[in-house]
């Protein structure tokens, strides 16, 4: 039986990068078949394959860390760098949508009537549900910090409660946004206003759902005793992602909802 004499993680060969790449192909070609021919079989296969890949890949990461002990301090450092770099890439993703919004709204063209919001667009009142959404996400930032401190103090009861509250606030935000979407007097096809509004807020909403899912996985792992007061990077990664989602909303609220009205 050989043992490694270095602190790094030499992973077992895994099929998930391949299945991930193939399911990306199924998703993209599936979208083509749906958009052009209304056929959904390929897209369905792609969704199932990508979800199965994600489930098994991350399940294996939990096995490698919590059960096999491969996440030594140098390995964890690499994971921290990785998560930070990923979040930075997401910042650039949103920067594109904010660029599009400011490009169109700072110098409105004759097509919009020469002003922003364009003629005929009734923007949502920023002091109504959007303000509530802001409060909800800010509160969830507080509860997730409470969760982290409880985790570090080995307070199982409070960390569970605080994490549950964070998840509930995330779900509440999503429900509020869904209701707002059904109430808007404008749609995505209502000119450049509609496009910028729904692309930016739509992708933000998707990230809230992803973040809520990540936090829910942390909740389950917490119940299964995976986290210790000193080692809980999975939770920290989820918390960083959640704070990022919150910050993006603050930019959205100030730029599109408030200044843009």
């Amino acid at each position, binding site marked *: 039986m050989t043992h490694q004499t270095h602190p790094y993680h030499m992973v077992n060969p895994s099929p998930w990068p391949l299945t991930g790449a193939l399911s990306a*192909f199924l998703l993209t070609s599936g979208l083509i*078949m749906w958009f052009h021919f209304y056929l959904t079989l390929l897209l369905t*296969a792609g969704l199932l394959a990508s979800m199965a890949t994600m489930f098994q890949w991350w399940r294996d990461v939990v*096995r*490698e860390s*919590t059960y096999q002990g491969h996440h030594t301090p140098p390995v964890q450092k690499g994971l921290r760098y990785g998560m930070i770099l990923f979040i930075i890439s997401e910042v650039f993703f949103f920067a594109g949508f904010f660029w599009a919004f400011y490009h169109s709204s700072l110098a409105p063209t004759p097509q919009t009537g020469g002003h922003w919001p364009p003629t005929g667009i009734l923007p949502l009142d920023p002091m109504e549900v959007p303000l509530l959404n802001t409060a909800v996400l800010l509160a969830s930032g507080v509860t997730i910090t409470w969760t982290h401190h409880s985790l570090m103090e080995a307070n199982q009861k409070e960390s569970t409660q605080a994490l549950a509250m964070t998840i509930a606030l995330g779900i509440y935000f999503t429900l509020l946004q869904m209701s707002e979407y059904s109430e808007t007097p404008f749609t995505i096809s209502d000119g450049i206003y509609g496009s910028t509004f729904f692309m930016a807020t739509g992708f933000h909403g998707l990230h809230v759902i992803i973040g809520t899912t990540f936090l829910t996985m942390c909740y389950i792992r917490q119940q299964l005793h*995976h986290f210790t007061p000193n080692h809980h990077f999975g939770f920290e990664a989820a918390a960083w992602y959640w704070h990022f989602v919150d910050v993006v909303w603050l930019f959205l609220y100030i730029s599109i909802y408030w200044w843009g009205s």
Partner: protein
Amino acid sequence: MLAPRVSQALIRSFSSTARNRLKNRVPEKQKLFQEDNGIPVYLKGGVVDHILYRVTMGLCLGGTAYGVYCLAWASFPRNK
């Protein structure tokens, strides 16, 4: 309201106040996944791992073949 620090945080015993808490099965899992049997981590959990792997790979390979067929089909015009 600080809870007392837990020294052996990884292993927690089943206590009588744990009405809502699940038993800590991490040590059992650690034993299972650290067994020196040469099985890679993605199959090391047992039969369910094998089934899930086959279903996933089957979906991907079958789907890819069907996808290539679909794209070939879509590439040729048909009469209106």
